[in-house]
C-alpha cells in the first residue's frame, strides 16, 4: 500500500526472465517494435549508403513517397483496431479522386465544392461498408472485397478509364493540387501532403486515446459482445469507424492528386495491401483492440526507408519486396508472442 499507483509496476518484474520482461514491456507498448526497427533501419542505411541516404533531402523524400500509403494506412488502422479489415481503402481513394477531378475539370464545378463533394462521397462509401458489416452482419473481409470491386468498377465507368491530365487540372482547378506544394527547410523539401499525413495521424491518435469514442473503438475490437453488454452502441460506433475511414481516404484522394499531379483511374491499385502492410508492420494486431495508430505511421515509414535504402545501395527491387515480406511475417509473429501474455 506504500506504492503510489502511478509508479507501481503492474507485475513483479524481478521474477521474470529477461525475455519475459521484454514481452511484458512490449505488451504494454506494442509500438516500441516499429519505433526500434525504424530507428535501426535509418541508422543502418545511413551507415551503408552514407550521405545519399542520410540527407535531409532524401529523408524528406521518403516521407513524401509514403504519404499517400500512410494516409490509407491511417484509415486502415481505424478499421483493423475494431478487428475488421478494409480492402477497399485504395479503391475509395481513387474513386474519390476521379469524382473530384471530373467535377472540377470536366463539369466546371468550383474546385472547393468539388472537393467537399469528394469528402462527402468518401464518408458515404465508408459508411456503406459499415452498414453492410453491422446491419447485415457480414464479415468485413467479404464486404470490403466486394466494395473494392464495386468502387473500382464505378471508378472506371465514371472516368471512362481516361486520366485527367496535369495541365487540365492546372488550368481548371489548381486547388486540387494544393497538397503537392512544398516548403523547403534547409535541404529538406516537405510537401504539404507529408505534413497532412502527420496531422491526420496526430488527430486520429487524439480521437482514439483521448475521447470516449476512441475507448469504445478499442473495446469493440477487444471483445464486441462484452462492449455491447457494457452499454456501448457497437453497431453505431462501427459505422462511424468505417465512415471516418472513408473520409480519411477521401482526404487522401485530394493529397494524391497533388502527389501524382494527374488523376489516373488505374493508380494505387496495390494501395489496399500496402496499407495493410504498414499497419501490420506497425504492430497493430489484426485481431483488433491492440496497438497504437502511430505504429501504422512508423510502419509506412519503415517500408519507405527499406525501399529507399536498398535502392541507394544498389539492391535489386525484387529484394526490397523480399525484405518487406519478411518484415510482415516478423511483425505478426511478434504480435502473436505478445498476445500470449493475455491468455
Amino acid at each position, binding site marked *: *500500500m506504500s*506504492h503510489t*499507483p*502511478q509508479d*507501481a*509496476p*503492474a*507485475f513483479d518484474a524481478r521474477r521474470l526472465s529477461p525475455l519475459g520482461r521484454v514481452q511484458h514491456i512490449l*505488451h*504494454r507498448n506494442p509500438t516500441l517494435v516499429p519505433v526500434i526497427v525504424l530507428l535501426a533501419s535509418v541508422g543502418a542505411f545511413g551507415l551503408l549508403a552514407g550521405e545519399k541516404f542520410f540527407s535531409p533531402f532524401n529523408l524528406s523524400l521518403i516521407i513524401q513517397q509514403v504519404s499517400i500509403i500512410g494516409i490509407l494506412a491511417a484509415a486502415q488502422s481505424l478499421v483493423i483496431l475494431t478487428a475488421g479489415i478494409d480492402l477497399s481503402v485504395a479503391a475509395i481513394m481513387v474513386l474519390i479522386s476521379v469524382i473530384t477531378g471530373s467535377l472540377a475539370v470536366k463539369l466546371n464545378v468550383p474546385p472547393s465544392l468539388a472537393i467537399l463533394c469528394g469528402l462527402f462521397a468518401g464518408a458515404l462509401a465508408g459508411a456503406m461498408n459499415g452498414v453492410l458489416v453491422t446491419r447485415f452482419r457480414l464479415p468485413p473481409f467479404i464486404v470490403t472485397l466486394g466494395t473494392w470491386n464495386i468502387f473500382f468498377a464505378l471508378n472506371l465507368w465514371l472516368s471512362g478509364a481516361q486520366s485527367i491530365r496535369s495541365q487540365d487540372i492546372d488550368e481548371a482547378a489548381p486547388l486540387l493540387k494544393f497538397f503537392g506544394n512544398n516548403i523547403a527547410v534547409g535541404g529538406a523539401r516537405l510537401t504539404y501532403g507529408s505534413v497532412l499525413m502527420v496531422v491526420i495521424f496526430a488527430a486520429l491518435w*487524439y480521437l482514439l486515446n*483521448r*475521447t*470516449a*469514442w476512441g*475507448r*469504445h473503438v*478499442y*473495446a469493440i475490437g*477487444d*471483445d464486441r*459482445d*462484452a*462492449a*455491447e*453488454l*457494457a*452499454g*456501448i*452502441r457497437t453497431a*453505431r*460506433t462501427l459505422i*462511424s469507424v468505417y465512415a471516418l475511414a472513408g473520409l480519411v481516404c477521401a482526404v487522401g484522394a485530394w493529397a494524391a492528386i497533388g502527389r501524382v499531379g494527374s488523376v489516373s483511374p488505374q493508380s494505387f491499385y496495390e494501395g489496399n495491401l500496402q496499407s495493410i502492410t504498414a499497419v501490420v508492420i506497425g504492430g497493430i494486431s489484426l485481431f483488433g*483492440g*491492440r496497438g497504437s495508430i502511430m505504429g501504422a505511421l512508423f510502419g509506412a515509414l519503415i517500408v519507405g526507408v527499406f525501399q529507399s535504402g536498398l535502392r541507394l545501395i544498389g539492391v535489386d527491387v525484387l529484394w526490397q519486396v523480399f525484405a518487406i515480406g519478411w518484415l510482415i511475417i516478423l511483425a505478426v509473429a511478434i504480435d502473436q508472442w505478445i498476445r500470449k*501474455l*493475455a491468455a
Partner: protein
Amino acid sequence: MSDFVSGGDGNGGGKVGGENGGKNGDGKGADKNGVGDGLVLRARGLTKRYGRVVALDGADFDLRPREILGMIGDNGAGKSSLIKALTGAIAIDEGEMFLNGEAFRFHSPLEARRAGIETVYQNLALSPALSIADNMFMGREIRRRGFLGKYFRALDRREMQRVAREKLNDLGLMTIQNINQAVETLSGGQRQGVAVARAAAFGSRVVILDEPTAALGVKESRRVLELIQDVRARDLSVVLISHDMPHIFEVADRVHIHRLGRRLCVVDPRVHSMADAVAFMTGAREPPVEAR
C-alpha cells in the same frame, strides 16, 4: 436517470459528479421505486428458445423495492437467461415485463443501464486490453471541463482514475496497485471485483449480480456481501445469483428458486432452511403451495 447515465458514443457522461462518482445519481431513482404494482421489476411468462433448447419456459420474476433477492437454481436452469432477458441483452420470444408497473422491453443493455439497472453478467463484460479505469467508465466517460472537454471531447482521465481507485478501495481490492493496468493482467477474482465495483458504483435503481463471488476468496466475498448491503442501504434493489447457499441465506430477503427454465417458487430464508431450498431446487421435494 438519463442525465446521470449519459453513455453512448462519444458523448461521455460529462455530468457524473466527481464526488459522488455517480453514486445513486440524483436520488430520484429510489423514489420512483415501488410505485404502480409495488414492484420494481415484474415479469410474466418469459420464454426464450435457442433452437430446440428452451432456456426460459414461461418464467416469472418479481423484485420488490429495497430488497435483496437471492436467486438459486441448477446449472442450465435459466438464471442467466432470465436476467439477460430483463436487461435487454437477449430478446425474448414471449412474455411481458414491467418496470415500476409499466410495461417495458429493453432492446439493449444500454437502455437498461439508462433506466438505472446495472448488471454484472456472468462473463463480466470487461474489455481485457483496456485499463481498469477505462473499463469502469466504459460508456459513461467523464469529459474534461472547459474548452477541451466541450469542443474536443477530451476525457478527464485523472478524475476517472481517481474515482476508479476509490471504488476499488471500497471493495477492499487494495492489491490492485495500478489503475491503468490492463484488465487481462488481473487475476480472475480481481476482474470480478472490477465488474462488481462498476455495477455498485453506477446502479441507481437495481443492481443485478450473476455469480459475483464465484472466483473470489473468502475475504473478498465478504466484501462483496457487505457491498450488496451498502447498495440496498442506498434504497436500491439487488438481485444476487449464486451457487453459494450460505451467502444467499445470509443476505437475501427472499429466495427465488429457478428450475427448468421457470420460477419454481420464492421462499423466505427465515422460514425455510438451506436443505429445504436444495430439495425444492433439485425436485426432491414439492415446494409449499403458498410459496408458488
